[in-house]
């Protein structure tokens, strides 16, 4: 018997009980489809984060207070043991480090922002001119901060679009005076739409000079220093340089952490990777259950066809012939199920991409291959026992079976 004949034999057997074959395959179909869909969700989320981070600018390093032992994670800064990062740290970096384009001392706070009778609680970011480039921001009207604003602690602000809408509606905001906290600030610009990136709504932020923010929040502690490196090739030397300069300033102690966006990306990739693997693993369990379903049905089928097995043996079939025949049936079941699952999972993933564009799903080839080969091996694994059982039937007993 060659492969084609074995296949046609399985086809005959499976087609003779279509409903049963279909239901048995359904287990594998669901298993394979869910592996593919869940991996597609994971891959989609990954590339979504890649895109968003690209959106946030490239060649960026961030210095945060506190030393972390492993790369990437951030320990909660405990004030007693860690020296804070201060404005002068950033100034020093800007002056000394040769590989960086600029260092932005960043202060983050929230405050009440008021105009006439409108008021809202807002995130306020204290930054410098470079932050604008660094995060790929742009203004809709007016201008962003400049160095003079920062140096002379001017009380000026740039409003995010949402903030401007909330306070001014459709009226012109440029030149108006809003109160932030206790101070009065002149609006010098309104930001263009940026949207939500990685959970930060850039449209709902008020930007003021870092120096002004220090007074507003009465602090000299920076949230972080965000650094623009000259080129991607200089990221590594820049990190080392920043480390050296800051260690010297901090009494020879490394009580800060320099992170690159790549590292953060790496951490998120790792987390997403684990998540995807866990989800795919859970889906794989359903594939296993599908395999048990195949075994169950094959056992029933072998029992039902005891007489057929006896006849075939009497007519000269060897144990091997019977084994192959039944194994081919279970493998055919699981392979067709696998194929159906690939199609079904692929279609659902594509459907999601079409109709719900914000839920990113990307079908990855490896998950398709994996699910398919896994389903094939499920067919072999769970088919061997029933097929072996069939092949070992005593022809005399089998022929007498009613």
């Amino acid at each position, binding site marked *: 018997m060659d492969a084609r*004949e074995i296949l046609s034999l399985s086809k005959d057997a499976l087609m003779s009980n279509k409903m049963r074959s279909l239901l048995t395959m359904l287990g594998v179909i669901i298993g394979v489809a869910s592996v593919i869909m869940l991996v597609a969700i994971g891959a989609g989320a990954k590339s979504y984060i890649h895109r968003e981070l690209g959106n946030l600018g490239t060649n960026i390093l961030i210095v945060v207070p506190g030393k972390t032992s492993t790369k990437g994670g951030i320990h909660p800064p405990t004030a007693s043991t860690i020296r804070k990062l201060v404005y002068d740290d950033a100034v020093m970096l800007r002056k000394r480090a040769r590989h960086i384009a600029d260092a932005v001392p960043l202060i983050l706070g929230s405050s009440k922002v008021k105009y006439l009778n409108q008021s809202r609680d807002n995130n306020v970011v204290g930054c410098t001119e470079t932050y604008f480039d660094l995060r790929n921001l742009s203004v809709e009207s007016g201008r962003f901060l400049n160095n003079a604003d920062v140096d002379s602690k001017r009380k000026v602000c740039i409003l995010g679009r949402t903030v401007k809408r909330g306070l001014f509606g459709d009226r012109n905001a440029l030149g108006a005076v809003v109160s932030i906290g206790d101070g009065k600030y002149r609006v010098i610009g309104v930001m263009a739409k940026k949207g939500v990136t990685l959970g930060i709504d850039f449209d709902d932020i008020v930007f003021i000079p870092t120096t002004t923010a220090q007074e507003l929040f009465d602090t000299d502690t920076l949230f972080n220093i965000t650094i623009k490196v000259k080129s991607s090739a200089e990221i590594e030397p820049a990190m080392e340089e920043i480390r050296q300069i800051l260690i010297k300033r901090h009494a020879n102690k490394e009580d800060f952490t320099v992170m690159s966006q790549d590292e953060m990306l790496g951490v998120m990739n790792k987390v997403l990777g684990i998540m995807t693997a866990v989800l795919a693993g859970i889906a794989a369990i359903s594939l296993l259950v599908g395999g048990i379903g195949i075994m169950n049905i094959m056992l029933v089928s072998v029992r039902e066809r005891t007489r057929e097995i*006896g*006849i075939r*043996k*009497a*007519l000269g079939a060897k144990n091997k012939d019977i084994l192959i025949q039944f194994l081919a049936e279970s493998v055919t079941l699981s392979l067709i199920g696998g194929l159906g699952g690939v199609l079904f999972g692929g279609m659902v993933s594509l459907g999601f991409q079409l109709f719900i564009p914000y839920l990113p799903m990307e079908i990855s080839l490896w998950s398709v291959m994996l699910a398919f080969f896994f389903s094939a091996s499920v067919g072999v694994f769970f088919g061997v026992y029933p097929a072996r059982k069939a092949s070992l039937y005593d022809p005399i007993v089998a*022929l007498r079976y009613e």
Partner: protein
Amino acid sequence: MIVLKDIHRSYELPKITVEVLKGINLEAEQGDFIAIMGPSGSGKSTLLNIIGCLDRPTSGRYLLDNVDVSTKNDNELAEIRSRSIGFVFQSFNLLPRFPAWKNVELPLLYGGVEPKMRKQKAVEMLGRMGLGDRSDHKPNELSGGEQQRVAIARALINSPVIILADEPTGNLDSKVGKEIMEIFAELNRGGVTIILVTHEMEIAGFAKRIVTMRDGVCYSGCA
């Protein structure tokens, strides 16, 4: 051609050992037509199974075409069945899902004959059995006599050394049974060796030689 020497066959049951065949000596020549008779439980079918290489004797020697088959393993026996033996059963034992010609070609499938050749031979053999127009019918679309003729076609397809029939007319009315026996007689005239089991004297009458068995021993007719 067939030589059985002191064949014993016993079955181990949980508490006792049942000896079904207690030393059978039987010889059959090419062109023989033997009817094995005897009451139920006398060991007829067990003997037939051993001759058909479906079963092995517990002791004794069985020479088929001068080859000792009593010590062959399962695979070797399967090969011998496929090459040298044709079976006809009381209940026809056709595969219900397949049309007549697919049933007939089965022994060729396991004999390694290629598909086109198989179908051609199968249809030809059905024609010889007078079923030329029935080759695409499934067993349940055929009468009992027709089904048994399909089974005979299947038994003959490999040009076996010997045809073994276990009560081939048991499920047929006497008229159709006789028709089937005519076919066997005709085949025998053409040189085919036939051994059949029956307990109808009328059927046994078609044979050249009658062997009677009682309690696992050969009562009469054995060489």
